[in-house]
């Protein structure tokens, strides 16, 4: 084929392919909108989560539930949500460790360790994707695979994601990981498939002490709205202007 033929074919091919694609799209067009299929209206909601740090007992049940609900790989370095232990000693030394990477046996063995009197304060902090209102991970995605829904949840389209890891670098909270099986970025979705069916996210469902509270910030009467009103609320890294929708109560100033 010479250059002239190639260009002629190309000029014909693109509009023709476009017409076919447009027809195909029209045929399945109705399935593309969420409200048309389920009657769920995204614009009516703006989801958030409250975390009462003083209530977390570090039982790790939320992490296990998240893994079971969302098929997160079992290996102990892939998490959509995880628990950190902060230990603050005299003279201000702070150590942070992720207790979710340990096996239940390891956590049980820790219970027989003697108490350390040099520890001023020690507590657990549940962490997860902050579902930022102004998400840095969405900005950097080169293919538009990660996006914010109208109800304020940041999702990753695994069919578009090219696994470049740019979003993992951009997330200031370390909330994303690369799924080793799909080779795409993965993160907390607030259990989108559950909350749109009026169920609680799996981690909230199993939390024994109600340390996690899920709610809709657009609702007038809502546990989360009430939680925000009754407590002094802080967010992680407020200086980055990401406007996190995971709101912490009784959060120690040392928590990053």
């Amino acid at each position: 084929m010479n250059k002239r033929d190639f260009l002629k074919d190309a000029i014909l091919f693109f509009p023709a392919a476009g017409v076919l694609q447009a027809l195909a799209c029209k045929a399945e067009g109705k399935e593309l909108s969420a409200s048309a299929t389920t009657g769920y209206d995204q614009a009516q909601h703006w989801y958030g989560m409250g975390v009462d740090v003083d209530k977390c007992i570090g039982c790790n049940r939320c992490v296990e539930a998240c893994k079971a609900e969302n098929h997160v790989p079992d290996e102990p370095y892939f998490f959509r949500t995880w628990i950190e232990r902060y230990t603050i000693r005299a003279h201000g030394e702070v150590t942070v460790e992720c207790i979710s990477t340990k096996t239940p046996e390891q956590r049980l063995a820790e219970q027989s360790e003697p108490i350390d009197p040099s520890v001023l304060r020690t507590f657990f902090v549940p962490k997860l994707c902050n579902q930022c209102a102004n998400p840095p991970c969405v900005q950097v995605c080169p293919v538009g695979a990660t996006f914010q829904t109208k109800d304020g949840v940041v999702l990753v389209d695994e069919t578009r994601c090219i696994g470049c890891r740019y979003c993992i670098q951009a997330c200031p909270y370390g909330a994303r990981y690369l799924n080793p099986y799909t080779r795409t970025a993965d993160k907390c979705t607030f259990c989108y498939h559950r909350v749109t069916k009026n169920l609680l996210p799996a981690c909230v469902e199993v939390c024994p002490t109600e340390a996690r509270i899920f709610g809709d910030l657009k609702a007038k009467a809502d546990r989360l709205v009430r939680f925000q009103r009754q407590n002094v609320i802080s967010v992680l890294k407020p200086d980055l202007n990401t406007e996190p929708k995971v709101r912490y109560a009784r959060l120690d100033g040392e928590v990053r």
Partner: protein
Amino acid sequence: MKLPEQMKRLGIIVLLFVVIVITRFFLLPETWISARPHQAAKVVREMAKPVQYAGMATCRECHADEYNTKLGGHHRTIGCENCHGPAAAHVANKDDKAATPPKHRDREFCLGCHGFVASRPNGFPQVDGQKHNVKKRCVSCHDPHDPVPPETPQDCGGCHGRIARIKAASTHAPLACTECHQVAEQHMTEPRSALPTKPAQRQACARCHDKASADPAAARSRVDFSSHGRSYVCWECHYAHLPEGTQ
């Protein structure tokens, strides 16, 4: 009439431009231009994902007795699937033995939450797994749906483990908790409805730590209460469970 060569070329350019515009705005599907259709499709796919945890309200439909027992007890905030695991498969098919949620009977399962860990919040009931009725399973004394200690706890360390352990290593170890805190009987059964007091008067500490106090031979730190930190109660600066002299 013959069109000049320039006009022909101009015509081709205009035609090409029109073709491009029509292609871009009318022929090319939106999926080729914008990510929005992909994202809408992703939302639909995400919403269609299967649920593993059925939720407490679903369990109630068949297991109302257990649900109601739990509702009146200390485990009222705990979802059924916290202990019994994801139950959506069980809800879908009650007769499937493989999907029947497990009943945990081992000590380790209970100790996952109720074993002593220093980082757990103050007041959360914790036991020392190596001392607390080692040979017995927890469920032989405690009903998991309505857990109540068989006897009213008298040892504060059951819920205030970190404080008890720290105090045990300090010079204040011989002092009973009630030396400084007044604890209503009600606090033992309904902890939050009657909170223990803290000393409101400096006199609580002055009994032992004032220069003029009795038993001058006893080895303990003393200050002149008339001049030392006058307007403050002692525990506003000193941590009485681990006084500075200990380390």
